[in-house]
């Protein structure tokens, strides 16, 4: 679905490359988390996925189609991107307009627009704020609106650039569950940039960027390596690794506390 072939990128007037020889592919329906230190190149990488930035070297294919000046408009309809700062993507003067505007752009019939927008705003917990001006929302409400706008368009690929940093824990969990659901129903490919390693445990695979290069590409369960890249394990994963090192048969990385306790319980009840 997404293919990067030896992609390097250099911002004008900068001494160093922000991306260096990036190679990877993500298949349809896969959920990939991208991790890495501040300034390691994650947002730069994301902006290549819908042609906001063009590689200095190398090429990118989306759904088999080479990303270039001709294909970029078509590709943008299929790749929905939530920016790190949601304020950069507000276009409407009210919450509902903002979502509807995106739907007009993809040429959705008028009757379906309202329904989709309503559904998406409800899913993101903004049902009573249709007439509010986007810039008058709280910080977390802004992030919710940005995500609602993209989900409503039902793109084939969703790229979330640290889109959940300001959600409360309950809201974050709801969003992750929503993603999992729509992914199953609609085979949506998800790329999620995050610093929250626990959140990354929801993904099928993680890619870790390190100073513009791919430092790691694989399963988070090989998490011993994660510390090499300036990432700390959150409590639950650190405990999981510690139990595994002490001989507990850990079968999978827990997404939440219950999943770890289940594994401990299974072990004791079969001992």
């Amino acid at each position, binding site marked *: 679905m997404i293919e990067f072939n030896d992609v390097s990128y250099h*911002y004008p007037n*900068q001494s160093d490359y922000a991306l260096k020889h990036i190679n990877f592919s993500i298949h349809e329906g896969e959920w990939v988390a991208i991790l*890495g*230190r*501040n*300034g390691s190149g*994650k*947002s730069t990488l994301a902006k290549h996925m819908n042609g906001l930035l063009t590689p200095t070297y190398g090429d990118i294919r989306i759904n088999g189609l080479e990303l270039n000046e001709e294909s970029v408009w078509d590709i943008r309809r299929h790749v929905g991107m939530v920016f*790190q*700062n949601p*304020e950069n993507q507000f276009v409407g003067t009210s919450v509902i307009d903002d979502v509807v505007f995106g739907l007009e752009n993809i040429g959705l019939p008028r009757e379906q627009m309202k329904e989709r927008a309503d559904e998406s705003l409800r899913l993101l*917990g903004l049902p009573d704020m249709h*007439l*509010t*001006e986007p810039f*008058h*929302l*709280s*910080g*977390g*409400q802004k992030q*919710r609106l940005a995500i609602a706008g993209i989900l409503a368009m039902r793109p084939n690929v969703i790229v979330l650039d*640290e889109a959940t*940093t*300001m*959600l*409360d*824990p*309950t*809201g*974050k969990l709801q969003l992750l569950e929503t993603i999992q659901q729509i992914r199953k129903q609609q085979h949506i490919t998800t790329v999620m940039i995050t*610093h929250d*390693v*626990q959140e990354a445990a929801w993904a099928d695979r993680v890619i870790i960027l390190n100073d513009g290069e791919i430092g790691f590409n694989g399963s988070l369960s090989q998490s011993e390596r994660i510390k090499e890249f*300036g*990432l*700390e394990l*959150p*409590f*639950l994963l*650190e*405990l999981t690794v*510690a*139990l595994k*090192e*002490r001989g507990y048969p850990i079968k999978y990385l827990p997404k*939440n*506390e*219950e999943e*770890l*306790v*289940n594994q*401990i*319980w299974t072990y*004791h009840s079969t001992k």
Partner: protein
Amino acid sequence: MDISFNQVSFTYQKGTPFEHHALHNVSTSISSGTMTAVIGQTGSGKSTFIQHVNGLYYPTEGSVEVGDFTITQDGLKSIKKLRQQVGMVFQYPEHQLFEENVRQELLFGPRNFGLEVSDSRLNEIFNMVGLPNEVLEKSPFELSGGQKRRVAIASVLVLEPKVLILDEPTAGLDPAGKQQIMNLFKSLQVEKQMTVVWITHDMTEVLTYADNVIVFHEGKLMGPAAPKALFRNKELLAQTSLNKPSVLKFLDELKDQIGVSINYNDQSAIELADEIIKVGEKS
């Protein structure tokens, strides 16, 4: 400086169809030299609350006292003096970055207040927030999200305020950066007796760093409470849809599902793993 809110209410866009009551009769006090976390769901009023402390909003009703300053609906004449002592980092760092390059950005505040800052001091502050020196000459708009956040924090620290007000200062920082920045705030509190008030959604951060916690729910304030006491208060957690830190959730699950009860006394994950093994061997 001590901070106190006396029956503060705040309404956005009062008198328009979009009128919104964001704070309802909020009273609380925060002692000088403490570190206080402000938590609560999206839209509960946290940012509105803390922006009252440096006079970005004036209470619609009631008053806010910060040291010897008193802010009411009429505002405050000596607002500039207040802002020199109360540094504020916004939820979106973009809202406070506007200079041509990062060096100018850091010097803007001191210049505004007639203070001198040496180059070596700038480099020192840059180090404290984990930014490489070459970023000093870059435009703030050519930085990554986390780099912008660090610059915004540095631009407030350079003023050496007595009170630090931080709106989700660790959002968007990498895990190592989060620790570095939170440890920095803690050391400023302990060594310089700074009063630190910060908003966060990370309950582990609250448990690790807060002396006190204030909870917002639909514009109403609850607390302050000590973090451990707060996370034991089941009714309050349920009523305000708050989550517990991961370690406490895990220990609850362990007790409910397997009947193994381990008390939490600040053990690390490693220490807990050892305890679990011990309990397992006994059973």
